């Protein structure tokens, strides 16, 4: 594999292939010195090889070296050494001598070229010293002028572009006219007939201003010959971006051979503008390093006329190079702008960083006020309804049965964990239960898993009529249990056997003292946490729950598995008890009817506007 790219040599003895740099055949051991060669070395006859370095050297370099005697003695010494080296080693093989000779010849050639260039540079520097300041000042003035012109053009471009009837800005129409999309038929182009050639010409003149370049005569003649060609403007796009206009450039290059007249025109145009015709290409290397002029200069260094002419030529070259660089920079900016405009054409306008202001939704306000107004009317005018449910649910019935079964010798622990927003709902359910416990004389204590439970308990006790009975110094006020499920787990462990922990939680009730736990919460997570952390460690503890209606569905599995003996939720309070002191059942029913009507209206409204379609699942590929 590795030898595929290497040239091989064939052994004359065994006929097998060897690498070119092998001096002996690896198969038969035969010497291959005659066939030895470097990779890429061009084999030439010996006679030609000897004369090659001298015959190919430019004559002016030789003359220059003779006149100025600038060839170092070291070089000559090295040359002599180089010539002497093969002689100094008579035992060296012939191939090695040839190699050394070849290397020495190439070194000499490159050395003379370098020396010649050095001489040219030094010569140029000497000449430039005289008027360098003037030229520098003139160059600075030109650069300033160009910069000012550029600023004016940019300011002109930033002005808002006029918009047509369809809302398309003029710059976009211009780009579309200049760059028709692929697949557009001639009919499409014909339909785009608002932009005739004359209008485009006028638009170019207006927009480009100083940059506008009138078409030269040869191009016009070409267009007359080829009336189908509608590409008049030719942008001088750098080589890096030639892919934008590949065919057009080729056509132009082929169709407009540079003539003296057009070159003069282009040169004049390129002096003042950054837009030039394609035929004005960058200067070639031989033009930059004008050897003919330099030859003449070197031959007649004392001639003042020649010096002037040479100076002019050099200044011209310099201007051409500077102008070329400026053109390239301007072109790059224009091409980048054009690319951005074309790529952003079909995209939505950029609104990054801007967030939409929340709009005032009058519909929402009206509906909200209507619901509140209707509920207020219902509260004011509807009579208080009874909470008796003709068909109580199984959890309700079981709760009532367990509550009835609690005897005065049992102890109940009330665990509170709910937000104040859920207080009306939970207080309505818990108030009759607490009343019944108090009437039976059952001993009970309370803990809260939330901080705000401390003052929510006060509201609950007041509604149950217990606050005045208990007074301020009572153990029935809840103890805050900090730590969530950690605290639950800690509490479930037998604390009597761990005096150190009891020191940390002095007021915490001992679970072993209780027979029933009544969870009063608006979160199924609290119920789950209790059942997962406490209940497995306390087998003799029966769990009852009063939960918010929104969590009733989530705790039902625990009821059916027997982990919760019974629960009350939402509007399903204790059967045969009246909760209307807290919640008017008729108002609740009226509210549910209003919400149902609104829900149906919303469903029909959204269905009419197609907003009920399910979003598709995004499949990862």
């Amino acid at each position, binding site marked *: 594999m590795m030898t595929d790219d290497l040239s091989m040599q064939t052994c004359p003895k065994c006929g097998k292939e060897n690498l070119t740099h092998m001096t002996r055949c690896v198969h038969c051991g035969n010497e291959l010195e005659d066939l030895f060669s470097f990779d890429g070395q061009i084999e030439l006859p010996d006679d030609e090889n000897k004369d090659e370095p001298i015959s190919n050297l430019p004559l002016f370099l030789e003359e220059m070296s003779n006149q100025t005697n600038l060839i170092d003695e070291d070089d000559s010494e090295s040359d002599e050494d180089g010539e002497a080296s093969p002689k100094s080693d008579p035992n060296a093989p012939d191939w090695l001598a040839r190699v050394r000779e070849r290397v020495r010849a190439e070194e000499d050639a490159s050395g003379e070229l370098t020396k010649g260039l050095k001489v040219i540079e030094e010569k140029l520097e000497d000449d430039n010293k005289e008027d360098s300041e003037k030229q520098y000042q003139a160059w600075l003035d030109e650069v300033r002028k160009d910069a000012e012109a550029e600023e004016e053009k940019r300011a002109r471009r930033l002005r808002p572009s006029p918009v047509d009837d369809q809302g398309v800005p003029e710059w976009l129409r211009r780009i579309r006219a200049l760059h028709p999309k692929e697949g557009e038929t001639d009919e499409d182009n014909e339909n785009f007939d608002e932009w005739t050639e004359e209008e485009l010409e006028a638009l170019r003149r207006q927009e480009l201003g100083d940059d506008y370049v009138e078409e030269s005569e040869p191009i016009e003649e070409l267009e007359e010959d080829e009336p189908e060609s509608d590409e008049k403007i030719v942008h001088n796009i750098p080589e890096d971006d030639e892919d934008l206009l590949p065919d057009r450039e080729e056509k132009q290059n082929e169709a407009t051979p540079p003539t003296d007249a057009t070159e003069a025109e282009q040169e004049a145009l390129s002096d003042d503008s950054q837009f030039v015709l394609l035929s004005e290409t960058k200067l070639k290397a031989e033009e930059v390093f004008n050897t003919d002029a330099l030859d003449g200069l070197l031959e007649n260094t004392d001639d003042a006329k020649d010096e002037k002419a040479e100076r002019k030529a050099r200044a011209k070259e310099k201007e051409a190079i500077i102008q070329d660089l400026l053109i390239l920079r301007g072109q790059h900016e224009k091409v980048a702008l054009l690319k951005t405009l074309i790529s952003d054409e079909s995209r939505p306008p950029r609104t990054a960083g801007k967030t939409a202001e929340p709009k005032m939704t009058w519909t929402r306000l009206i509906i909200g006020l209507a619901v509140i107004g209707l509920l207020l009317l219902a509260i004011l005018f509807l009579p208080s309804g009874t909470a008796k449910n003709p068909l109580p649910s199984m959890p309700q019935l079981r709760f009532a049965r367990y509550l009835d079964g609690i005897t005065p010798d049992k102890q109940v622990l009330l665990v509170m964990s709910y937000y104040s927003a859920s207080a*009306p709902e939970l207080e309505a359910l818990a108030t009759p239960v607490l009343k019944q416990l108090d009437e039976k004389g059952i001993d009970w204590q309370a803990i809260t898993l939330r901080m705000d439970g401390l003052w929510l308990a006060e509201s609950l006790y007041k509604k149950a009529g217990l606050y005045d009975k208990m007074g301020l110094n009572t153990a029935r006020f809840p103890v805050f249990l900090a730590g969530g499920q*950690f605290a639950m*787990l800690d509490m479930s462990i037998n604390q009597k056997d761990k005096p150190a922990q009891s020191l940390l939680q002095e007021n915490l009730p001992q679970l072993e003292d209780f027979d029933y736990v009544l969870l009063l919460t608006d979160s199924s997570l609290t119920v789950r946490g209790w059942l997962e952390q406490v209940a497995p460690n306390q087998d003799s503890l029966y769990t009852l729950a009063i939960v918010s209606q*929104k969590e009733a569905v989530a705790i039902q599995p625990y009821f059916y598995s027997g982990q919760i003996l019974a629960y009350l*939720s939402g509007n399903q309070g204790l059967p045969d008890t009246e909760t209307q002191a807290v919640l008017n059942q008729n108002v609740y029913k009226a509210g549910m009817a209003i919400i149902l009507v609104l829900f149906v209206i919303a469903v029909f409204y959204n269905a009419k506007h197609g907003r009920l379609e399910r979003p598709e699942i995004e499949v990862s590929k």
Partner: protein
Amino acid sequence: MSSADLILGLVGLALTLMIFSYLIKDNVFFGIALYLLVGVGTGFATLLIIRSVILPMLIKPLTQPGTQAFYLALVPLILSVLLALMLFKRGSRMGRIPLAFLVGAMAAMALIGISRGTLAPQLLSVFHRFSPGVVASYSTIRWWGLVEAIAILIGVVAVLAFFRERQEKLSGQSDSSAVLKGMSKVGQIFLGISFGGLFVGLMSSALIALIGNLSEIVTFFSRLLGG
């Protein structure tokens, strides 16, 4: 009505109206009420934590050197100091120690708790309904109980199938078996019923809360006007 009740009632009414002003749009009054709630809640929580946690559980044991409570209290003290180091750039790495301890303990506790408190009892509950001993313990066949047990079993399997099939869809696999697809559809029905129940419960709770607050306002005005 006392002056304190009057002031508290007016403040409550004003705050309620400020919250309701969100119906118009997100405005400054709604923001004030919201920030007031957050600020008051934070202040209350801070004081309560100092009083109920830091003082009795940390400071008090530390005032009893040589006791077991003292040495136990050193552990949360060190962990708290390490956690406080997260406020500084250089000490942020040290703060990972208490966080790692906390996360590890929580994960272990949750894993054991779920296994003992939810998974095992729920599975046993489903199996128990099909237990021959339970079925035979009744004199007649409990058809409703049997239907209920079958429905629970089908629901569990179908919901699991739905999530399995959805996972395959998300990963680009379209070669799910017909049985899996069918069970997935059934699972969607069960999930729909569950979410419907949750939604009704949520609406019911919100309605009760609204009625409760409106009733409070009506009561306040009636007491105010009635003297």
